[in-house]
């Protein structure tokens, strides 16, 4: 076991470093290999998107790298370093005080329920702010800080005096992202920030997230979504996840997909372009394999058109070319 780093030494510039990381669900149903050997580096100033189908482990990944796992999800092996802290090795108290309160901010998927329904937004903010920073400011004082923060992000101040049910979905999502960045964390991790919104609020949320980063309130963003076109707008690097593994990552994944899964996924998307109506769009046949006993070898092989002999036998290697990674035998 490695000794956890102390605050003093921060050699690597990576804000988030995930190395050969595994996290499994354990219960009466067996062991589900939800996140199975993934590696990721997120440097300062990067916006990384994780895309994939439902049930491929995106949300489990988000929970694991923030240390906020649901009851059946357990750490298995590997390491996650957030600004030098190995979050699965340090004590829960350090994890809470240092990492969760100061370094990262995690906006989970069911964020619309995360505001307190019987308190005004400003009272909720006051509670949150006191908890995170350990100060004992009055509601009024916190409200001033919040107003300033909201104004920087071009959000309406009047939200603070409302109850959560009075806000629309898009407004609530933007408020929650604003609230979660009030304590200026370094890394923002959002899980499906736009999935329940319509296109115009979606655009506003994307714009605001980029704005927060440009204004230097946060350093990096990790965004998890099933919507590739949203990630394309928001992120400058995209990682494609399939059945608990990262199959491809890089900056031009969308324009030049290499992995057969990414290609198939891109072919099934519907961009708003003139040709969309006239070219036949295809769906990917089959379903994601059961992750309780993931198949040996390539996990996509049953749905893959370019399947080879070797795919049945051996796990494909991760082939790295510059900033591009692809996990497929085709490129060996």
């Amino acid at each position, binding site marked *: 076991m490695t000794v956890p780093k102390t605050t003093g030494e921060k050699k690597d510039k990576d804000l988030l470093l995930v190395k050969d990381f595994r996290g499994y669900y354990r219960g009466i149903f067996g062991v589900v290999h939800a996140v199975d050997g993934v590696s990721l580096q997120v440097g300062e100033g990067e916006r990384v998107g994780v895309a994939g189908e439902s049930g491929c482990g995106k949300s489990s990944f988000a929970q694991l790298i923030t240390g906020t796992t649901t009851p059946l999800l357990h750490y298995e092996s590997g390491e996650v370093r957030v600004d030098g802290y190995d979050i699965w090795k340090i004590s829960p108290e350090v994890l809470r005080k240092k990492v969760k309160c100061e370094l990262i901010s995690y906006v989970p998927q069911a964020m619309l329920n995360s505001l307190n329904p019987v308190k005004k937004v400003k009272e909720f903010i006051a509670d949150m702010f006191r908890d995170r920073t350990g100060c004992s400011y009055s509601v009024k004082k916190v409200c001033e800080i919040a107003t300033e923060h909201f104004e920087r992000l071009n959000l309406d101040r009047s939200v603070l005096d409302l109850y959560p049910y009075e806000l629309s979905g898009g407004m609530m999502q933007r408020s929650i992202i604003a609230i979660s960045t009030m304590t200026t964390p370094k890394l923002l991790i959002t899980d499906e920030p736009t999935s329940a919104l319509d*296109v115009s609020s*979606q655009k506003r949320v994307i714009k605001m997230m980029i704005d927060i980063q440009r204004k230097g309130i946060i350093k990096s963003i990790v965004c998890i979504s099933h919507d590739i*076109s949203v990630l394309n*707008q928001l992120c400058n690097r995209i990682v494609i996840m399939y059945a608990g593994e990262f199959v491809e990552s890089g900056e031009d994944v969308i324009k030049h997909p290499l992995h057969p899964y990414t290609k198939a*996924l891109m072919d099934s998307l*519907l*961009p*708003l372009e*003139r040709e*969309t109506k006239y070219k036949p769009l295809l769906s990917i046949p089959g379903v994601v394999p059961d992750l309780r006993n993931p198949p040996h070898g390539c996990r996509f092989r049953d749905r893959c058109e370019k399947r080879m002999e070797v795919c049945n036998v051996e796990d494909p290697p991760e082939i790295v070319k510059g900033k591009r990674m692809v996990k497929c035998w085709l490129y060996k």
Partner: protein
Amino acid sequence: MGELLEIENLAKIYISGYVWTEKKVAVDDVSFSIKKSEIFCLVGESGSGKTTIGNIVLRLLKPTGGKILLDGRDIYSYDKKTYWRKVQVVFQDPYSSFNFFYTIDKPLDDAFNLLENRPSKVERKKIIRTIFKKIGMNPDEIMGKYPHQLSGGQMQRILIARSFILYPELLVADEPTSMVDASTRVAVLNELLRLKEEEKLSVLFITHDLAQAYYIGDRIAIMQKGKIVESGLVEEVIFKPKHPYTKDLIKSVPPLYEKWKL
């Protein structure tokens, strides 16, 4: 000729409260018609009244004003069973459309109750199997399974199949793909397109996704705050929008290959 559903000056006002009532106009003077073998798309933001129209057409809600005609007759002049034989629905959430205590054979079997002469058990099985084969699904893989063993896309296609036991004339599809993965979304859409071509089905397709509406639709209506602000052929509305709201909406769709300048 060929108008299947005609909606004239439809209005729906929701009233809440007993002593101090609050009114909310959900649908405001909406008129449109759907032809035979046509996919008509209703697009709008959340809260624009799309689903209300869908529910009114399905007779799940009573309109406050206006007239809806199916085949030239008022929809309330039909007997309920006759009406639902003609008009069927696929809802947004496939996961809550099934009762998870039963295998998926049960809801399919129940659909036969709407028919006047309920076929025998053997025949019912046979019909279900042919319909599954028709929509390109392997009946052996699906029948006898529980909902949780199937993917969202499969469930949604089974719901389409279920509506086809009755051979409806109109299918109301209320955001059928919003909870389905991108990889299987196309399968649902292609299924609707095929049914339109081969079975002369008309579809009222309710969505907030302009790209889907463009892919599947013949005609489109854009809704804002209960009103239709623009309607016409999909190509014209999407590539030559006239109303400022439509223009705004189209600009907000994230393009797949270019990046916005933000």
